[in-house]
C-alpha cells in the first residue's frame, strides 16, 4: 500500500462544510498506457454498439497490482494469445455490427470506390472507437483499407467491415493513451473521466465538451461530472469499482466443499455479490450517505437464498428486497455479508488469517508481509484444539510467526461466529467461540463491535480515498502525489465520508485533469 501508514490524519467528524484548503500541487510520474480491463472492454463495446451486442467470450486475463485490475492494466503487456483474442473479438463484433438493424454507414455508397462515403464512415466510427478524432494519416490509412478490400470483394460493406475489424484491434482502441507528460489532451481527459465514473467510454456529449475546450476549466469539468453522475452508467462505474476493490470477481469461481457446506452454490455467490453491490449502489448513488454505514448497517438487500443463510424470514418470494437484521443477530454491515465471509475463507472452513488480511489490507491499507520461507506453517488438528483460536495459538507462540499472525488473527478471529460461507454459529466442535479481541488499541467483544471499530479506525477513510484515487489515476500514488492524496482524504473524512463527494473532488481536481503538473 502506498503512503497511508504514515499518514497524518485529519480530525474526523460528521460535520460537513469542513474546508481542506486549496489543492496542493503535484508531481506525477511518467504516464502509462492503460489496457482496457475485461470489464472495460465489455462495457465499451456495449456502449458503442448497443446493449444487444455480444462481447467476445474470452479476452486477455486482467493483470492485477495490489489486487486492482485497473492498476495492473498500466504495467502489463498483451500476449500473443491476447492479440489473437482481440482479432477474434474484432471480427465477431464487426459481423454483429453489420448484421444489426441499424446501418452503421452514414451514407449510401455509390460504388466500391466511393471515397467520400468511406471517409464519412471512417471519421464517424473512428471517433467513437478511438475516443478522439482521427488524424489525417489515420483517416487515409483506414479509407485505403476500406476501399481496397471493397474493390477486391466487390462489396463496399465488406470493406467497411474489415476497416472496423482493424480499428477494433488498434492500440488506440485497446489502450487508453495518456502520452503527454504533465498535460493530458482534452480527449485523454474525457476518457479518464468516463472510465473513472462510468468504467466505459466517453459519450458524444463528453467528446463534444472536450472538443469545445470545456474540460480545461474546473467549472467545465464540474458540469460534466454532474451530468455523468446523474447518468445510469454511473451506477455501473460505482459497482465496477467495488468489484475491483473487494475482489468480488472471485465469487464467480468460488469453490466450497459440498460435504461441509451443502448450501453453497454458484447461485448463492451470485446472490451474495448482488447483495453487496446493490447495497453499495444504494448507499453511494441513491442516498449519498455516510460510507461508514457500510460497516454498521443492519439493513440488507437479500433474496430467499441469503435469508435462509442468515436465518431470517425472506422479505420477498421473488428476487431481492430489503430486510432488517434483528438487533441481536450479531451480524452487521459488510463484515456480515456472505460475499466477504465466503471469499476470505477456505473451501472447508473459515479463515481468521484471510479475513484478517482483508480487514487490515483492503479496509485499512496496512501491509502484512507474507509468511517467511522455510517455516512450518501447519496448525494442529481439531482433536487437540477445538476452536480455531486454540489452533492458531501455535502461531502466536512461535516468534517467527507471531509478529504477523497477532496482527492478522486478532481481528480475523472476531468473525469466527461466521463459518466458511457466512452462516452464524455459536460453537465450533462443541466449544464456545470467543470472538473478542483488540484492533490497534480498540477492544471489541464481537463482530458487531469489530465492524464499528474498523469504521472509526483512523485509517478507514484515508485508506478508502487512497484506493479510489489510485484507481482514478491508474497507478499507485508516488511521493509527488502524496500531498494530493492527503488533501483528498482530509476532505473526505472532514466532510462525513461521502463517496460521491470524494469522486467529484478527484474528477474535478487539477491533478486528475493534467495527469500531474510538471
Amino acid at each position, binding site marked *: 500500500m502506498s503512503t497511508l501508514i504514515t499518514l497524518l490524519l485529519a480530525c474526523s467528524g460528521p460535520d460537513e462544510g469542513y474546508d481542506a484548503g486549496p489543492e496542493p500541487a503535484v508531481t506525477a510520474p511518467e504516464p502509462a498506457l492503460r489496457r482496457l480491463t475485461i470489464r472495460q472492454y465489455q462495457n465499451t463495446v456495449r456502449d458503442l454498439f448497443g446493449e444487444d451486442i455480444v462481447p467476445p467470450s474470452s479476452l486477455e486475463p486482467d493483470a492485477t497490482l495490489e489486487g486492482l485490475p485497473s492498476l495492473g492494466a498500466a504495467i502489463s503487456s498483451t500476449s500473443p494469445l491476447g492479440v489473437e483474442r482481440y482479432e477474434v473479438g474484432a471480427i465477431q463484433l464487426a459481423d454483429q455490427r453489420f448484421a444489426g438493424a441499424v446501418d452503421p454507414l452514414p451514407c449510401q455508397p455509390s460504388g466500391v470506390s466511393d471515397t467520400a462515403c468511406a471517409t464519412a464512415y471512417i471519421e464517424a466510427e473512428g471517433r467513437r472507437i478511438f475516443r478522439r478524432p482521427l488524424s489525417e494519416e489515420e483517416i487515409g490509412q483506414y479509407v485505403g483499407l476500406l476501399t481496397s478490400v471493397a474493390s477486391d470483394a466487390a462489396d463496399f460493406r465488406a470493406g467497411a467491415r474489415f476497416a472496423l475489424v482493424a480499428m477494433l484491434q488498434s*492500440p488506440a482502441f485497446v489502450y487508453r493513451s495518456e502520452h503527454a507528460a504533465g498535460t493530458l489532451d482534452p480527449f485523454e481527459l474525457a476518457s479518464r473521466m468516463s472510465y473513472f465514473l462510468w468504467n466505459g467510454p466517453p459519450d458524444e456529449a463528453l467528446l463534444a465538451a472536450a472538443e469545445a475546450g470545456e474540460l480545461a476549466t474546473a467549472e467545465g469539468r464540474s458540469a460534466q461530472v454532474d451530468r455523468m453522475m446523474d447518468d445510469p452508467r454511473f451506477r455501473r462505474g460505482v459497482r465496477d469499482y467495488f468489484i475491483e476493490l473487494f475482489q468480488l470477481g472471485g465469487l464467480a469461481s468460488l469453490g466450497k466443499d459440498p460435504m461441509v457446506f451443502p448450501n453453497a452454490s454458484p447461485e448463492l455467490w451470485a446472490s451474495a455479490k448482488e447483495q453487496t453491490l446493490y447495497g453499495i449502489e444504494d448507499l453511494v448513488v441513491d442516498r449519498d450517505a455516510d460510507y461508514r454505514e457500510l460497516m454498521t448497517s443492519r439493513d440488507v438487500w437479500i433474496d430467499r437464498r441469503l435469508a435462509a443463510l442468515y436465518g431470517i424470514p425472506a422479505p420477498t418470494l421473488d428476487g431481492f428486497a430489503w430486510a432488517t437484521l434483528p438487533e441481536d443477530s450479531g451480524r452487521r454491515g459488510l463484515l456480515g455479508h456472505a460475499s466477504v465471509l465466503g471469499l476470505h475463507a477456505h*473451501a472447508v472452513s473459515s479463515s481468521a488469517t484471510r479475513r484478517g488480511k482483508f480487514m487490515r489490507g483492503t479496509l485499512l491499507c496496512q501491509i502484512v508481509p507474507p509468511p517467511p520461507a522455510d517455516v512450518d506453517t501447519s496448525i494442529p488438528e481439531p482433536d487437540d484444539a477445538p476452536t480455531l483460536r486454540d489452533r492458531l495459538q501455535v502461531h502466536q507462540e512461535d516468534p517467527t510467526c507471531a509478529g504477523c499472525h497477532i496482527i492478522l488473527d486478532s481481528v480475523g478471529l472476531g468473525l469466527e461466529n461466521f463459518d466458511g460461507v457466512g452462516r452464524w454459529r455459536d460453537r465450533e466442535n462443541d466449544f464456545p467461540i470467543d470472538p473478542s479481541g483488540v484492533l490497534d488499541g480498540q477492544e471489541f467483544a464481537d463482530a458487531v463491535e469489530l465492524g464499528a471499530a474498523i469504521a472509526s479506525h483512523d485509517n478507514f477513510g484515508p485508506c478508502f480515498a487512497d484506493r479510489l484515487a489510485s484507481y482514478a489515476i491508474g497507478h499507485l500514488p508516488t511521493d509527488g502525489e502524496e500531498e494530493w492524496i492527503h488533501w483528498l482524504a482530509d476532505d473526505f473524512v472532514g466532510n462525513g465520508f461521502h463517496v460521491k463527494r470524494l469522486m467529484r473532488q478527484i474528477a474535478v481536481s487539477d491533478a486528475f485533469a493534467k495527469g500531474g503538473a510538471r
Partner: protein
Amino acid sequence: MIRRNFLRGMLGGSAVCVALPWLESTASATGGFPQRFVTWMWANGNRPERWTPMGEGSEWLLSDELMPLMPVKDKVSIVTGLSVLYPNNVPHWSGIGGMLTGAEVGGDDEDWVVHAPTLDQLVAAEVGNGTIYRSLQVGIDTEECFSWNGPNAQNPAEKDPFALYERLFGPTFVEPGSGGLVDPSLGYRRSALDAVMADITRLQNRVGAADRERLEQHLTGVRELELRLARLQDDPPDYEACVRPDSPFPEYPDIDGRPQLIARNAAQNELVAMALACDLTRVVTVQFAKPVGNTLYPDASDGHHNQTHNEPGGQPEVHAITTFCIERFSELVQRLDAIPEGDGTLLDHSICLATTDVSEGRTHSLDEMPVIVAGSGCGNLVMGQHLRYNRLNSNHLGLTLLRGMGLVQGSWGEDAYEVTDGLSELEA
C-alpha cells in the same frame, strides 16, 4: 494492400530433428521430424521423502510418487538434489521462477515480478518461428501459466478444451492432403493487421520507454498472428500421424464442487499431442494447476495449498495429490510415445520437463526441487537414469535443456548463480 499467399511455396520443405531456426532447417537428422519442447508444471511441490528414487545412474527404482511413470521408465530421467539458490522472497513464485527463468523473482507475494523470460520462450524464439503457433500455453485447472517473455509479459493459458480445439483444429485447420479451400477473408484479415501494426508503430513514437517495450510485445503478437494467417493460406506439413482429433465436450462443469481433472487433462492432452504431431507448434507449456492453487482434488478433504500447510504428520493426502499429478503427466508422455515418427516416436523427438514451485509445500523449501525429464530430444539427452546431486544450482539443468534443444548457449542464470556447465550425466 491485399496480401495473399506470398509465402506459398516457401513452406514445403521438410522440418528436421535438429534445433536450428526453422527456415535454416534443411538437413535431416532423424527422418525429418521437428524437435519439440514441453514444460509441464504442477502446483505446491511433493512429499520429498516419498519422491526420491532408490539407486542412482541407470540402476534405480521408481519411488511411490513416481510410480505412475512405470510404463515409460526407460524414456524418463529423474534429477534430484537440485536447489533454487536465489532468495526465497516470494513463496512458490521464487521457486518456479528460479527453475524456469534462472533468475530471482522480485517484489512481494501480492505483486511479484519475474526478471527474465522462461525456458519455453527462449526455446520458442529459436525453434518456434516456423510453425503456426510459436508456442502454446495450456491450463488444466487454471488460466494462469508460468510462461513469460520478460517482466510483466505473461502468456496466459487456454483452459477450455473446446476453445483450444476451435483454435487449433477449427475451420482454419487444413488436414494434410485434404486440399481444403483457402478462406478468402484471410487476406483481408492480414490487411487489417497491417493497419494495426502501423498504428502501433506510430504510437510507439509518442510514448515513454516502458510503454514502447509493452507495445513491442504487442507488436510481436500481431506479427505472429499475421504470419500464422499467411501460413493458413498454405498447406501445413504433411505428417502421417496428423489427423483432426475428435472435438472435446463443450463444457466440463465441476461435479460436486470439484473440477473434472481427469477428463479435462485427457482432452487437453489429446489436443496437445496432435498439435505437436501436426507441427502446429513445437513448444507447449502446460500448467496443471497454479502455484499456491487450492484445487480440490478427488477425495481430498481440503484444497491442495491448504493441505500442504495444514495436513499433519506425513501428509497422506498431499502425497496422494502429488501422485495424481504425476499420473496426469505420465498420461501425456505416454500419448506422445504412442505417436510413431519414423523409426521412433514423437516423444523421442521431444524434451519434456515436469517440475513444480517448491519441494516440500509445508515449508516452501527450494532444496530437492522435483524434476522429471522425459524424452531424449532426438538423442541429445540420456534417458532412463536417476541423477542424484547435493544441493546443486538448478540453473545447470536449464542450461542442459536449452542446449538439448540445440540452442547455442554459453551460460544461463542471473548474477552469482549464472552457470556455464550443464549436467554432463544428462547430456549425451
